[in-house]
């Protein structure tokens, strides 16, 4: 019997050790970062895992390695869906108080949930330490500030209201690529002509790309002020302006190829690059896809602000955060410093195709940027700036997720315009 008791004890110990070895995982994590071999690490979560995004990140890491040779950059990229996979993993990691050292997030309202929950450190002091308050344009700083505090450091700025069009397809339909339509109705008429010429007028991909299209139609119909009012309650989601936008959106979707509705933006852009479709509305990172396909503007493709939104810059920015309880906060601060530095921003943005968040670059630095980027920088300086919904600048993540769901329902024909508007009202009222 004594032997039995011993063995039973062993079993109990085994089951205990299970929980125990679970417990040790975190310690192991922080253990390997320690000074064992004098090597410090910083765990960085991004969704830049492929193409120009990945190359841009690599360039940024190179600068980081020069500036902070003692700290090893550990890439925790989580690929997929315009960051949707990364955001899901982050949501659980943050809720479980198991954050990385720093993670990529869209600057703006998207961070609101994490801020409310106390997951993020206030990094305002780093703005002073790195002397960023004058380096970043005020319009950008305003959008980053929540109750007087700033919770992330932007690396780059993108524009979401850009139409990409195939020159050949437009010409074949009897349209002048150099003269885009001035408003949505004119644009829809152009699409009809493309359709008559036997090509796909417009393509759209998965939910967030639908929102990218829809928000720019909202912007065109409501104007910059009306559009911005959607986020502070001055414009009614249930009102006539939104109703009109939904009508336009419905007409445009009727002309769209919907078979790509599960695909990311790049497969949805492909028919435009390859001459099967005329238009796609996408952020200016699409430029990289045209470059990768060796296409030239204006011979092969043209780009212009979404009709009805000229003079407005629908803005989004990528930024990095400092989570509460980050295993290596000092290293994370080093990373944030590189991200915000001139060298880092130039290295990253020249490759990624975005414009730097800093507005104090020298003429030499500016010369390194492409023609498109230089024009985008000028636009950012002079245009009216509004915030993108699809890319987290305008609304908290759960709200834009609900809007995504409503649009996903609409594109499949499960709701009509009135129902979509009701769903939008519900989505924006709930949180």
């Amino acid at each position, binding site marked *: 019997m004594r032997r039995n008791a011993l063995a039973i004890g062993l079993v109990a110990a085994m089951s205990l050790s299970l*929980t125990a070895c*679970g417990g040790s995982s975190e310690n192991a*994590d922080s253990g390997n970062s320690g000074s064992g071999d004098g090597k410090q690490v910083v765990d960085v979560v991004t969704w830049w895992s492929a193409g120009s995004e990945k190359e841009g990140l690599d360039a940024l890491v190179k600068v980081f390695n020069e500036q902070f040779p003692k700290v090893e950059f550990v890439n925790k990229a989580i690929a997929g869906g315009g960051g949707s996979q990364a955001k899901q993993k982050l949501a659980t990691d943050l809720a479980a108080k198991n954050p990385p050292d720093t993670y990529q997030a869209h600057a703006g309202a998207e961070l609101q949930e994490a801020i409310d929950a106390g997951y993020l450190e206030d990094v305002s002091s780093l703005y002073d330490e790195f002397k960023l308050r004058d380096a970043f344009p005020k319009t950008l700083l305003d959008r980053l500030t929540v109750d007087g505090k700033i919770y992330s450091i932007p690396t780059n700025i993108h524009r979401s209201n850009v139409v990409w069009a195939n020159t050949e397809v437009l010409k074949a339909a009897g349209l002048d690529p150099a003269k885009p339509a001035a408003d949505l109705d004119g644009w829809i008429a152009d699409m009809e002509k493309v359709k008559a010429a036997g090509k796909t007028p417009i393509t759209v991909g998965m939910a967030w790309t639908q929102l990218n299209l829809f928000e720019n139609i909202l912007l065109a119909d409501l104007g910059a002020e009306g559009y911005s009012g959607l986020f502070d309650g001055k414009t009614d989601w249930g009102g006539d302006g939104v109703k009109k936008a939904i009508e336009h959106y419905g007409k445009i979707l009727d002309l769209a190829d919907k078979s790509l509705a599960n695909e990311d933006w790049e497969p949805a852009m492909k028919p435009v690059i390859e001459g099967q479709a005329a238009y796609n509305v996408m952020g200016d990172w699409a430029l990289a896809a045209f470059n990768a396909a060796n296409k030239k503007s204006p011979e092969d493709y043209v780009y212009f602000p979404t009709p009805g939104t000229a003079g407005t810059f629908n803005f989004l920015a990528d930024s990095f955060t400092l989570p509460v309880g980050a295993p290596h906060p000092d290293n994370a601060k080093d990373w944030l410093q590189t991200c915000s530095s001139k060298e880092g921003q130039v290295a990253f943005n020249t490759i990624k195709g975005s414009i730097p968040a800093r507005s104090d670059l020298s003429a030499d630095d500016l010369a390194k940027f492409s023609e498109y980027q230089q024009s985008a920088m000028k636009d950012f300086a002079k245009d009216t700036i509004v915030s993108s919904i699809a890319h987290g600048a305008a609304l908290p993540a759960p709200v834009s997720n609900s809007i995504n769901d409503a649009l996903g329902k609409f594109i499949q024909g499960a709701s009509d315009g009135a129902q979509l508007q009701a769903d939008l009202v519900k989505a924006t009222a709930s949180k």
Partner: protein
Amino acid sequence: MNETAKKNVFPWGTLVRYILLLASLTLVLIPVYVLFVTSFKTSADADPSRTWMLPQLWDATNWGRAWDTLYPSLINSLSLVIPSSIISAMLGSMNGFVLSKWRFPGANIVFTLILFGMFLPYQAVMIPLMNLVTNAGIGFGIPTLIMMHVVFGIPITTLIFRNYYETIPGELIEAARVDGAGMLRTYFSVVLPISIPSFVVVLIWQFTSAWNDFLFALFFGGSKDPVVTVALNNLAHGSIMADYGASMAGALIASIPTLLVYIALGKYFVGGLMSGSVKG
């Protein structure tokens, strides 16, 4: 079988059966053909009009890319699957033994209560599990996943072992008891040695289900050491360009371990399914 009838009449029945079986075979193998063929195609070869054709040029770069992406996660998955299947097989064996041969009052109720865990929709415990992991400071990663697979593997492993031990004649246990053997000695000297077939079954079962698990891996896997299903899903949905070639090669790579296990031990696998689900 009716030998004479077989010799004299043309076996129409058998012919029809073959036709139906071969048709089924073709349908079942279509996805395999696609996986295989597409994984060797270059992107230039990926035109829709050529989707069902063989590659113009057999190219292994997709495989290389998929391998580079998945290799670390294959190791992670192995380090998850091996301990979790061994531990849960041990637990299941002991439970099965006690619940069939060393019963205590209420053993039937306990067994039924354990068995319900087999049908538990994990969605119904995910939120509190998340809270538990958070509050206990356990953290995410392979050890946490091992724990989950062990715990939620208890019902099925217990069931398979119990059903197997039920078929052992009671006299065998009696004899050991009469000889004065205690419970553990009876278990280790009498029951365990004849449990090999069940162990094979349970190990295969747990290996496959832990290897193929996606839900737990998604919630409780660490972001730095994804298991193979998560890495594959990221590969398939991840790259902004739908990289079908690499995804398909990746799907094949991710399936190799379970397929190997299945091919090597398939016979027991079938046996296990039977003893696990078909009772009496």
